[in-house]
């Protein structure tokens, strides 16, 4: 089940109320702040629980982002892999045999539905985010969280919700709950962030 139970995470996400926040600081301000970030790099640790597995899987690696729509996830352990989102195109290169797969984010609602929410948040693109998700914001400048529930039925078949948490214009964790009960928690430690 990972470090936290699913219910604990969900509770934490939902209970964090706007009362935390300072008056006058809300989603638009968060998005404006995030939009200032030109590029960012981070290390990540991901814990996945899956229906087919009897124990969770851990993965580690690095994340890189360049505004507005380029993102790369490089997995180092357990199996090297590189995942690149460039505009609407996703390229996955698996390290073992170097096999590359290219497809459009739109073509694959499973992966596209996840990456779109993340990259729209990173870019601070609220209109795009609201087109694809029901967005619930809570918290303040020091600590905030977004709960994204996909609107497209093609995506809701796979993804129940995502919870992105952070402080200032940095992201600290991304929790994803799949429709089939699979669950992923990615904790993120940003190493370099450069604003415009």
């Amino acid at each position, binding site marked *: 089940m990972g470090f936290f139970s699913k219910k604990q995470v969900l509770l934490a996400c939902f209970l964090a109320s706007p009362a935390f926040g300072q008056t006058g600081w809300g989603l638009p301000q968060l998005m404006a702040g995030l939009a200032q970030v030109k590029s960012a790099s981070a290390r990540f640790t991901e814990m996945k629980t899956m229906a087919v597995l009897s124990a969770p899987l851990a993965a580690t690696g690095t994340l890189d982002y360049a505004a507005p729509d380029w993102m790369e996830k490089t997995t180092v352990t*357990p199996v090297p892999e590189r995942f690149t989102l460039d505009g609407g195109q996703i390229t*996955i290169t*698996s390290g073992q045999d170097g096999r590359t797969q290219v497809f459009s984010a739109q073509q694959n609602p499973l992966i596209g539905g996840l990456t779109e929410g993340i990259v729209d948040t990173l870019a601070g693109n609220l209109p795009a985010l609201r087109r694809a998700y029901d967005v619930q914001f809570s918290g303040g400048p020091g600590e905030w969280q977004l709960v994204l529930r996909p609107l497209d039925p093609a995506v809701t078949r796979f993804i129940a919700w995502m919870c992105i948490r952070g402080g200032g214009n940095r992201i600290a964790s991304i929790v994803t709950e799949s429709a089939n009960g699979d669950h992923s928690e990615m904790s993120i430690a940003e190493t370099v962030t450069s604003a415009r």
Partner: protein
Amino acid sequence: MRANRAAVAVWLVGVAVCAAVVSRTVLRTDMAAFLPHSATLAQQALTGQASQGAASRLILVAIAGAPPPRLAALSRDLASRLRENPAFIDVANGDETSLGAVQHFVWANRYLLSGGVTADRFTVAGLRAALENDVGLLGSDMGDVVQASLPADPTGEMLTLMGQLGPGAGPAGVDGVWFSADGGRALLLAHTAAPGFDIEGQRRALAAIQAAFDRGRAVVAGAAGARLLATGPGVFAVHIQAITEADVSRLSILATAGAVCLLLFAYRSPRVLALGLLPVATGALAAVAAVSLAFGYVHGVTLGFGVTLIGESLDYAIYLFTQIGPGEPAGAAMARIWPTLRLGAATSVVGFCAMLGSRFVGFAQLGLFSIVGLITAACVTRYVLPNLVPAGFSAPGSGILARPLLAVIARRARLRWLVALAALAAGLALVTHRGGLWDGNLADLSPVPAADQALDASLRHALGVPDLRYFAVFGAGGAQPALAASEALTPALQGLAARHLIGGFDLPSLTLPSRRTQSLRQSALPGDASLRARFAQASAGLPFRPHLFEPFFAAVAAARVAPLVREADLPPPLALREESMLVSAAGGWTVLAPLRAVTDPAGVAAALAASPVHGVELVDLDHESAALLLVFQADACKLAVIGGLAILAVLAAGLRSPGRVAAIAAPLAAAVMVTAAVLTWHGAKLSIFMVVGFLLIVAVGSNYCLFFARLEHDTGRRARAAGSIVLANLCTVAAYGLMSFSRIPVLHDIGMTVAIGTFLSLVFGAVLATPARAA
């Protein structure tokens, strides 16, 4: 009189016989029937593919002019309507149905189709490696995708196969359907049941697409402004035919109207006007019958183009009707002009004789068509027409027409220098023409309008449909040997891809392995008990849930006894692909394996020659068509030169005087040179069609010159003869001049060349061919 009636009777019987032959004539429109006999197996297979293969059935469709969500809805609506229409084998727009049939087929037959199925793969070590790989994949971003198929396919055959058989990256999507990168066009691919050369079938398919789109547009809200764009070989064929028909009917109505006005002015008799059509009509009928008997079929190009080549025979009747003097019987006038007419017809006939020997079936057909057509027309003019001309007929209007020409003839001594100067300037212009006189660009010969070509290129690019250029080609005795050879060639091609000499390849055995290979894969699968035992050992210590892999055990057990996959089992998209690569041609099978992104053709050709499969060749389509064009051009020039020499020989035999031959040949040579200089003005290039036009200038112009050379002293006869030449020329210039307004390159080029050239022949002939004593 009895002999004359006999001539009419023979003519009527001949017409009836020819009509009977023509009614049974087979008309062919595929280019393969027009190509040289000597074309290689690969060329024949490729041209066959171009006219009836999968590529020829492809229609690329774009929907534009509305916001993306509306376009996506229209795309779904259009695809679902077309999928219900039997005129379409396959319709893809990126939605789930597009790939569904292929995915289902590949999934059901994965253990027979996948190259990953070997005995090693199903040992404890092989299974352990596969399962460890699965754990890694589950942890990756592809994890959720892998998880769905994992219980039934832990060895990942599906992933391997879809990488091989799937559509690749595909275009970008909106709401799950294909879009252009800018989001402005929703894209679809349709394969028609009708082959590309079946223009009527293609027209119906295109109409069905438009109708389905219109119905969808009425249903989808907010899509009123949307419009449909379609391209592809079949669409081109339909457009070209529509343009040709429109041009030909519009221009020929204009040309006919012009000629009728001129001839009515000259003849003032509708009956004589109608009689004037008998030689050319009979000639065309006899020509079609002759080609049909000699070749077994008539090519569409021959039919359309042949009539243009025997247009000269319209002049025969003009010469006769216009030169009948007042009170002169038609038979007497005919006897007077026959030697000149006979020599003129003979020069044209020998000019076309050279074409008979061409390697291009098309040229040979055109040659025979012209020869038979002209001889028949000349005979009808000589033996039939004089019997049908109303007694006492004389063309009253020819005198007025002759006046300007007679003025030129009167001043010809001074004009000689002008003609010489024009010829000299033309010769200089041709010699100093930069960058070669020949148009080597195949696209310029293509009757497809440039805008259509540009749309096609942009849709192909957006849809990722490669315009294939390179193929590995080899022959085999049967389908199974061809598949086995294709399997034997696979490692060599994989090696080329690994060395980046090619970007990728396809082979028929990737879609449909040979029966032998499928059997070997079946026997590589272990029995159920053995598989379960090995699997338990292999999965020990890995974090999989117990009993997860029951679907896998069931699938392997089923695959061991499954019937082998046959070509008939392939779903439509894969069947189309297979048919395009494995072609059954006369007496054998040919494999055409497309190679993508070839970086080093010479290296690839060498590697293919060294492969274990015998006789594999690298075919470069661009090179083949360029080579074909060169041969075509060389052939056309050779035929024109031989034809020109043959005409000189006939003139020499007929005139028996070098001086008289020179008087005929000089104005023609000057006319051709000045025409060529005009056509290549400002760096323009000569097309192959213009060379045919040059031959026509000589064929038609030699008649003018022969009549000029035999102008009589008698003022009345001289005026009538000059009038007949002017009338013939005006009709020719009207017909070919209007043809030059056509959007079809063939018609435009020939029309332009002949209109300019025959007018120059008239003027130059009057100046140079008229003898000094006839002043």
